[in-house]
């Protein structure tokens, strides 16, 4: 049977990982290649690199980084952050990324999803959705959660799937950073609405939270950043814990 996936997320600015990393064995905690290789060796199933670089010139650094990651790392990885056109996606995929993740650009122009999917296949298009629950409505936000849109999480998820998205990465803004667990009810509903894999994001604080995302939220994969970077949860111990809950884990 297909395994549930554990995905560490690495925030990258100007080719270096940001957010503190306190692994003592790393010679350079800011080196994304070293960190990626370490996560892969510990049993990460996939990696997500989120480019938070602001300027266009520096985005070229990201393409160079993707090339290095593809050379060193033998598991699949997704690159997101600022992918705004077919040519942005093409540059990353041709450098060796397995998937690209789109957020604001897809919201502004859903046709971009089908344009990329038709050229490179749905399997490489991840739609990242930041949403917040307010008075019983999950509203979708743009630009890293700064601008509220008219869109509802579930409608947008279905629309994205219809346009050819291969996977959804749903971040609950209510849960993100709280370390109180994932948005399991919304995750479960998402999985009922779409027939593509759903990645849970936002709220991981304990090993049990990952189990809940899979068992209660029916998520296909769970993503986290700080709990892994700060060494609060080790990937191999997490996977061991999940296997003991009878969750299918590699």
């Amino acid at each position, binding site marked *: 049977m297909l395994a549930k996936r554990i995905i560490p997320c690495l925030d990258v600015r100007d080719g270096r990982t940001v957010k503190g990393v306190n692994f003592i064995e790393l010679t350079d905690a800011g080196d994304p290649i070293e960190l990626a290789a370490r996560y892969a060796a510990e049993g990460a199933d996939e990696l997500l690199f989120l480019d938070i670089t602001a300027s266009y010139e520096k985005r070229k650094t990201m393409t160079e980084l993707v090339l290095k990651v593809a050379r060193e790392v033998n598991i699949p990885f997704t690159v997101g952050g600022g992918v705004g056109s077919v040519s942005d996606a093409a540059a990353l995929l041709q450098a060796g990324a397995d998937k690209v993740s789109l957020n604001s650009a897809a919201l502004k122009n859903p046709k971009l999803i089908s344009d990329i999917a038709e050229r490179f296949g749905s399997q490489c298009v991840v739609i990242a959705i930041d949403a917040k629950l307010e008075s019983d409505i999950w509203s979708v936000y743009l630009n890293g959660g700064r601008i509220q849109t008219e869109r509802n999480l579930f409608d947008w998820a279905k629309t994205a799937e219809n346009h050819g998205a291969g996977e959804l990465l749903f971040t609950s803004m209510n849960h993100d950073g709280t370390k109180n667990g994932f948005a399991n009810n919304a995750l479960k509903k998402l999985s009922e609405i779409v027939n593509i894999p759903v990645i849970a994001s936002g709220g991981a604080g304990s090993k049990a939270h990952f189990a809940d995302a899979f068992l209660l939220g029916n998520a*296909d994969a769970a993503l986290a950043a700080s709990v892994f970077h700060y060494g609060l949860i080790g990937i191999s111990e997490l996977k061991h814990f999940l296997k003991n809950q009878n969750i299918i884990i590699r």
Partner: protein
Amino acid sequence: MKIAIIDYGAGNIRSLAFALERLGETDLEITNSGDKILAAERVIFPGVGHASYAMLQLKKYGLDTLIPKLRQPFLGICLGMQLMCNQTEEGNVNGLGIFDTSVIKFKPLLKVPHMGWNKVMWYKNPFNEVIPSMEWYYFVHGYYAETGVQTVGLTEYINDFSAVMRQDNFIGCQFHPEKSGAGGSVFLEHFLFDEEMFSKKGETMA
């Protein structure tokens, strides 16, 4: 070792080249030239793009008739393996007919594409017990090859399907060994260096 990677003008094959480089192989030729393919010691037919487009490209370069005649170890990956079958529902095209089975679309009883890590159970281990059964590999596909007499490894998702097929020097795998961590690199290593595996072909086939 001279390795030819068949180029049919679709998608990204850089990951495959990098995986081979990690195994110390740098004499790689990404090519659609029949002569270069014939001269290679190993031929890899990677898996990217759409079946009907890929078959058109193979025909354009005369590779549809050349490939079935090759005698050196040949590995088709993902779409590459699917195109080695009789026909595929993806674009309703005929394949190369090396594997006597059909490629069909998954019924959407679970999420499609089948994306992620899944296990392969050796039915007839092409690697003579060197590679353990139930090893994990990374899959991404919406179509699958039905099981047939040449199926040597099975995977279960919605139904059983052919994860690995073999006919003499021809091997096909549905998963991406270049993305399958340590297990995938062991698989590629055997394809490249396990001479015994190819010399004992008569024993592994029923």
